[in-house]
């Protein structure tokens, strides 16, 4: 039973977290909104002033913007599809009795602990490099021309690298969920003549729904902000072929030094993230214990 004084104490204990998170969210957001309506270029700072919605108009009319939006969705969607499908298959595989369960899991989880710039540079240099990479060696050995991964298939390469990083996370969560599935139910279904596919479709998959929604929620939070992998490998190129919305904003701020436009892009990104968050929280929030 919570007394009045313990309620007050509880509020005081929650307050610091709420206050710092609120400041961390609202101050930069307010400043970004302010800059998004200003003409503000670092190369010509003397020409400053209000510019209405011109920064937004530039952003929305830029052909790069629509490519960035579709690349962002492609990256998030592609990685989610790959990690959920492969993660489910691998979880089903290693959930069965195998020798060396412990070491096996350590190998499978490892990519998750590799920092994004290292993951990206291993793949880019040691594997996908058109002269010295392992894939190029194989291609030459088979008498084919090496594939120029980062030039010809930049988005696919980035999606591949990010999916490699997140596959362990999806696998481990789905595996944890599988382990709480009762074997009696499966055995009963088997005796009733249900095929392996039936058992997967009608028993295992429904049981995994909650775990899959958790994987989608958490990965989306992290995938919307993917930056290090692109920064290390393609730098958004060639041209803007692998520029995502975060990377486009980064380029406006750092390369073009146009703070006003970058800020407008930032606000657009916040609005889009809120739309995604709204649907995620509605669809998935109820699955979380709170």
């Amino acid at each position, binding site marked *: 039973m919570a007394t009045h004084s313990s309620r007050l104490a*509880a509020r005081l204990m929650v307050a610091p977290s709420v206050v710092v998170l609120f400041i961390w969210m609202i101050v930069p957001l307010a400043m970004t909104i302010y800059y998004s309506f200003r003409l503000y270029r670092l190369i010509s700072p003397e020409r400053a002033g209000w510019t209405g919605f011109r920064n937004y108009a530039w952003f929305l009319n830029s052909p790069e913007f629509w490519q960035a939006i579709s690349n962002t969705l492609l990256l998030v969607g592609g990685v989610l599809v790959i990690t959920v499908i492969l993660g489910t298959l691998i979880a089903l595989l290693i959930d069965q009795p195998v020798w060396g369960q412990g070491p096996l899991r350590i190998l499978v989880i490892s990519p998750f602990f590799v920092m994004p710039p290292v993951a990206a540079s291993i793949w880019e240099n040691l594997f996908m490099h058109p002269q010295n990479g392992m894939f190029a060696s194989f291609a030459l050995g088979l008498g084919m021309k090496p594939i120029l991964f980062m030039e010809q298939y930049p988005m696919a390469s980035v999606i591949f690298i990010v999916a490699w990083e997140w596959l362990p996370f999806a696998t481990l969560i789905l595996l944890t969920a599988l382990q709480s599935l009762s074997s009696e139910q499966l055995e009963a279904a088997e005796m009733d003549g249900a095929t392996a596919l039936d058992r997967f479709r009608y028993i295992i998959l429904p049981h995994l729904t909650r775990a899959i929604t958790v994987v989608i929620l958490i990965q989306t939070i992290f995938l919307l902000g993917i930056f290090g992998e692109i920064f290390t490998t393609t730098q958004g190129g060639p041209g803007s072929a692998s520029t995502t919305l975060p990377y486009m904003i980064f380029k406006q701020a750092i390369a073009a030094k146009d*703070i006003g436009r970058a800020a407008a892009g930032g606000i657009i990104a916040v609005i889009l993230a809120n739309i995604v968050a709204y649907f995620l929280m509605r669809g998935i929030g109820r699955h979380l214990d709170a």
Partner: protein
Amino acid sequence: MARAVSRRHKVVVTLAAWSVALIIFFPVLWMILTSFKTETSAVASPPQLFTADWTLENYAEVWARSDYPRFFGNSVVISVGSTLLGLAIAIPAAWAMAFVPGKRTKDLLMWMLSTKMMPAVAVMIPVYLIFLRTGLIDTRIGLVIALMLMNLPIIIWMLYTYFKEIPAEILEAARMDGAGLWGEIVHVLTPMALPGIASTMLLNIILAWNEAFWTIVLTTTNAAPLSAFIASFSAPQGLFYAKLSAASAMAILPILILGWFSQKQLVRGLTFGAVK
């Protein structure tokens, strides 16, 4: 889902599972092997899994020439510092939400999580300018603050799920015995919550160590941790694979080993208790 299976089935499954695991792990393994090769054999075609001329020279060179110890030190200070600061703020909050839940506790938790949804790059410029004007740019303390704020929602969520599993009756019993709020925290809560706090700490050190956005944006030289160092190291430059691999191995091995120890808690913690 343990079921009785034949020995042959187990052999087949073991072979398949180990093949998949080795494929997933192979890039890391290959990087570690490459780090012990000479630059020439690192780019040999066809690729050599093992070479005769093993060397530790790459590690020695990276350590000596690249100011590696400073980057490493920055990584340790920033990841541990931001985690400890985050815990100091998050523990009381999570405790209060778990044991004195109000009507809006769930909404509050959801709001905290939603702050993570805001793309960091969207607010990069203001944060950069604030850091520039307050002199926090390229300082360790500045990065400690930034990464603490970035991970605070996750720290609170993880602690909350762990604390919720501590039976409330125990706290009531302590209260009956006349323990004050402070006594409650020190004698009852702390021992029971310690495992949860420990794994939250471990996982947030991992997240902070691997963070590669704010570390790149907010540092230049003095406070740059390993993630910024590696990001700048990796323009394609021909004959430097062995050294790149050695530097990469030194950047990830401490956290890889930490991660191996905490993999069970990782799942529980990061799903916010939603998957058991």
